[in-house]
């Protein structure tokens, strides 16, 4: 699903540099990325989705080398293959729940909005406990509900890869657990790969793998190979 080799990326006019010698993620895996602020977690998501392009190295997602695609092809790739969930939910305030879920179809001419898609959106919303709130604006929803709408929006295009940037950052502990369960539940149904950036060490128990970016940077500085650990959340905690 994801193949990264010798990745180097630097934002203009900053000293920050992301270096990632190697990373491989299998289809259907649930990956958590942890690390201190400013270590490049969100940058990695941007590189995977083609929003940012590496200075060197290769980033292959779903068999496509993202940096070699044209702007339009990269956008189409993002629409077709990737679903995104954000920390601040980023719902459009003037749209109701259903329209927010269907937003990718409204803004992309490559996606056609059929009655089946509408039915699927309503079904997703129902599964998320939003069935009676399809006509509400985002301001009329609780934070947990808003994030559930954002998850529906990310999954409505049935992407192969779901990238979530701090999806539980603004939620209470109960909602955190429920939101993650929902993401995993829906992703498992379609065998989707999930990559979640988080600061929250308390939610790592459901992931297949945790990548600690602090260790990556330390390892890179020391010239060692990247090590990732599978199923060792207990040890981390």
């Amino acid at each position: 699903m994801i193949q990264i080799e010798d990745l180097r990326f630097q934002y203009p006019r900053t000293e920050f540099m992301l270096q990632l010698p190697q990373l491989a993620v299998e289809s259907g895996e649930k990956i958590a990325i942890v690390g201190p602020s400013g270590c490049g977690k969100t940058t990695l998501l941007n590189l995977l989705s083609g929003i940012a392009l590496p200075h060197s190295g290769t980033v292959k997602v779903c068999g496509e080398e993202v940096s070699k695609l044209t702007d339009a092809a990269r956008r189409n790739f993002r629409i077709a293959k990737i679903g995104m969930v954000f920390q601040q939910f980023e719902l459009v305030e003037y749209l109701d729940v259903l329209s927010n879920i269907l937003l990718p179809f409204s803004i992309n001419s490559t996606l056609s909005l059929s009655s089946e898609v509408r039915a699927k959106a309503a079904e997703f919303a129902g599964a998320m406990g939003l069935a009676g709130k399809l006509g509400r604006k985002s301001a009329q929803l609780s934070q947990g509900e808003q994030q559930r709408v954002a998850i529906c929006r990310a999954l409505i295009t049935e992407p192969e890869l779901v990238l979530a940037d701090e999806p539980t950052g603004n939620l209470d502990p109960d909602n955190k657990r429920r939101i993650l369960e929902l993401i995993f539940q829906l992703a498992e149904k379609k065998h989707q790969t999930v990559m979640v950036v988080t600061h929250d060490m308390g939610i790592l128990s459901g992931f297949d793998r945790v990548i600690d970016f602090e260790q990556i940077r330390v390892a890179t500085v020391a010239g060692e190979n990247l090590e990732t650990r599978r199923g060792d959340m207990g040890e981390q905690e």
Partner: protein
Amino acid sequence: MMGPLQLAWKYVFFHKAKSLILIACIVLTTILPVAVKLLVWQFDQKIVARAASTPSIVGAKGSSLDLVLSALYFKQGAADPVPYSEVERARGDGLATAIPLHCRFTAMGYPVVGTSLEYFGYRGLEAVDGSLFVSLGDCVVGHKVAEMLSVGVGDRLISDRDNVLDLAGQSPLKLNVAGVLGASRTPDDWAVFVDLKTAWVIQGLGHGHQDLNKESVDSPVLMSNESGEIIANRGVVSYIEITDENIDSFHFHGDTSEFPVTAVLVAAHGFKEETILQGRYESSESEVQFVRPEIVVRDLMTIVFQVNRFFNANAILIAGSTAMLMVLVVLLSLRLRKREMETMFRLGCSKGTIAWLQIGEMGIIFGFSMVFVFMGCGWVWMVSGDIVEGLLVNAR
């Protein structure tokens, strides 16, 4: 393209107050100069049409504009009067038809115009109810006067006093409505027409009172009756209404050729006759002038259009300022919505689609504004005739 347009519509609809303010700014900035242009155009059409239908006017020397406004719009007190003999002079040995106009008084707030029956034929006015005035004390009311005062044939109109504080002054005269004129959409609709002699009666130049010859010697109103010279006291009854019974008692003191008229409408029988008449007045040393209303009104309109040019320049500056403010609002709005646009971009929206979204929003705002502008202009177009008519009528 439907997606971005739908989103744009939802954005505009969600931010109703902001959208309405923007629409109001565009509508007001656009409609004000357009409405003024329409009104000026209507004003030009109306005033020039009225002037063009009146070949020439004779009146007292002084402001030719005041004379024209008095004769065409019955403006009271604008021009000094000339003696009635000028009417005869204007007829110029059969060179022209001369119609006297005396516009000094009002009845229930509407101008009372003393004239002759020729005026109605000249202006193409006909009574749609009743008839034109036939005897002293009769009046014919314009279409709007009849409508506003709810008067018809057989009703009475009372002339307004020249000075309400002058208790010893001329009493008001009850006018008998003999007819109602058809609508002409001219100042004639807003006037009360009487025979010139009736106007003079209102002015106090003629009057009627009880017949003192029939009074006995011991009548309380008689002070003396010696050698045919009757002197009465203030107890003598003056009539304030002209009826079949008292009409014969009405009489004028003095030479009617010296009685006042405000202006004389002169319709020469041809261009040659008009030129001869004009020559007579220009070479004359008398205190009257001969004016062509169309020329006077076109001079006035030249000034109006010059003023309008300043207004247009002002409107352009305001429109420019509003446009710059709108650009500022859009730029600030874009800054506020940066995250929303960023999210759309991350969800796969192209920059072109984002631009279409913005264009769609502005397009909807402008579209609605233009609809309101067209509706407003249509309304102004429909009522501009009445507004201009009202302005001209109220100007008196």
